[in-house]
């Protein structure tokens, strides 16, 4: 039963989001260097961190799939990666907006975290054509798990490498000039991070519930000997 607990979870998410956004605009102090633009960080960075952890969780689910040979883990892995990719789109767009506001260009190569994230995003964007190219569902699930594990191992390595590639001239923007966040900002940031994490879990559960419902309908149809006329998705794993 995937829908169990979805309602309290979504309520908690909404509450956390509302609280965090209030903190961002009514409580957190204005940054000395960046001014009001710094407020973008409260949404951009939590989204990024959540997406990255989401990718790694997708890899962990994939390990479970390979070890137990239970297809539900493949579905979990797919959904985890799928939601994280959507979060990734938000990260890149908000990152570009921040870059435009800060540096005047829609993209900058100076911010190592943003660049690393772009590479990770490009990596996971290939997940879909990869799944699509493998027709046998069993093999598709297995190979997708291998991909998710490989890509999961890739994420931290990539961040490390890009960080090292940056010249030391450009200061890292996230740590402010006074070195480290003042406590009000830290609190606000942590609340936003919790809100995004809750949102991620809620959306994953939501998606799995919808898939499960679809799966049950298919099961009903099979039992009644009345198969559906339409085709089902070729890449999204089914949940039953």
């Amino acid at each position, binding site marked *: 039963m995937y829908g169990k607990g979805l309602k309290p979870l979504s309520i908690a998410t909404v509450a956390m989001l509302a609280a965090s956004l209030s903190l961002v605009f009514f409580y957190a102090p204005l940054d000395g260097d960046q001014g009001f633009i710094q407020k973008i960080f409260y949404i951009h960075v939590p989204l990024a961190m959540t997406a990255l952890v989401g990718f790694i969780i997708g890899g962990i689910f994939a390990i479970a799939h*390979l070890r137990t040979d239970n297809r539900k883990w493949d579905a979990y892995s797919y959904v985890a990666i799928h939601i994280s990719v959507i979060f990734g789109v938000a990260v890149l767009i908000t990152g570009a907006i921040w870059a435009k506001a800060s540096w005047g260009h829609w993209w900058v190569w100076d911010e190592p975290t943003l660049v690393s994230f772009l*590479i990770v995003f*490009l*990596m996971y964007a*290939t997940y879909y*054509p*990869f799944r699509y*190219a*493998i*027709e046998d569902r069993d*093999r598709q699930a*297995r*190979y997708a*798990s*291998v*991909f998710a*594990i*490989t*890509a999961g*191992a*890739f994420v931290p*390595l*990539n961040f*490390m*490498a*890009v960080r*090292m*590639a940056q010249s030391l001239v450009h200061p890292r923007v996230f740590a402010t000039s006074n070195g480290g966040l003042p406590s009000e900002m830290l609190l606000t940031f942590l609340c936003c991070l919790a809100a995004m994490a809750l949102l991620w879990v809620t959306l994953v559960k939501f998606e799995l519930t919808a898939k499960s419902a679809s799966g049950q309908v298919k099961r009903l149809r099979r039992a009644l000997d009345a198969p559906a006329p339409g085709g089902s998705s070729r890449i999204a794993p089914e949940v039953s």
Partner: protein
Amino acid sequence: MTPSRAAFAAILAKDLRSELRTLQSLPAMALFSVTTFVIFRFGLDRTSLSGSLAAGVLWATLLFAAVLGINRLFVAEREEGGFDAIRLAPIDRSVLFGAKVAALIVYLAALELVAVPIFAIFFLDDAAGLGPLVAVLLLADLGLAATGTLISSMAVNSRARDLLVPLILLPLAVPLMIAATGATEPLLALGGPSYHRFGTWLMVLGLYDLIFGLVGYAVFDFLLED
């Protein structure tokens, strides 16, 4: 149960023999590299390169040649039915991974043996940096071989394999590229080779090799069951 080492040697020998026999990809890839150098000469409008430009041109070319060549090796294997034969053999599939990686390293090293001297002749003013470059090349080859074997083993059974391997392998190779060019750039610097952060970058390459070697070794079993 066949001892792993014997199996490893046997598969490695088979791979190398088949590559030598067909002689398909290697000359083609060497030719591709040289032509790419020429394109860079005109694309960048430079007749001599040093530092970051030299490192970039060299590694971009090697990477693209490797990605194109890796595909060829596995396609040939599949068409000859090699995969099926090995799947039936009573050996540890991870040994197969090791053997394929080793064969790919030999292939890449052979490619570099041709491409790098030609690169030096075309673009470099002094070849003093080439000696230590060998260490970078070897470590990078190991990483490319591990990820290349992993990805092409998966893609070889798919419909769009010619597109999939470059598509997936290139982002995967970015950290490797960063480390390789990071180490190479000071080696090919204008005033003579320097070793700024050389050890650090070699360690990053080693880490990359270790991580993806382990991942490949652990999951390869699941790629061959049917």
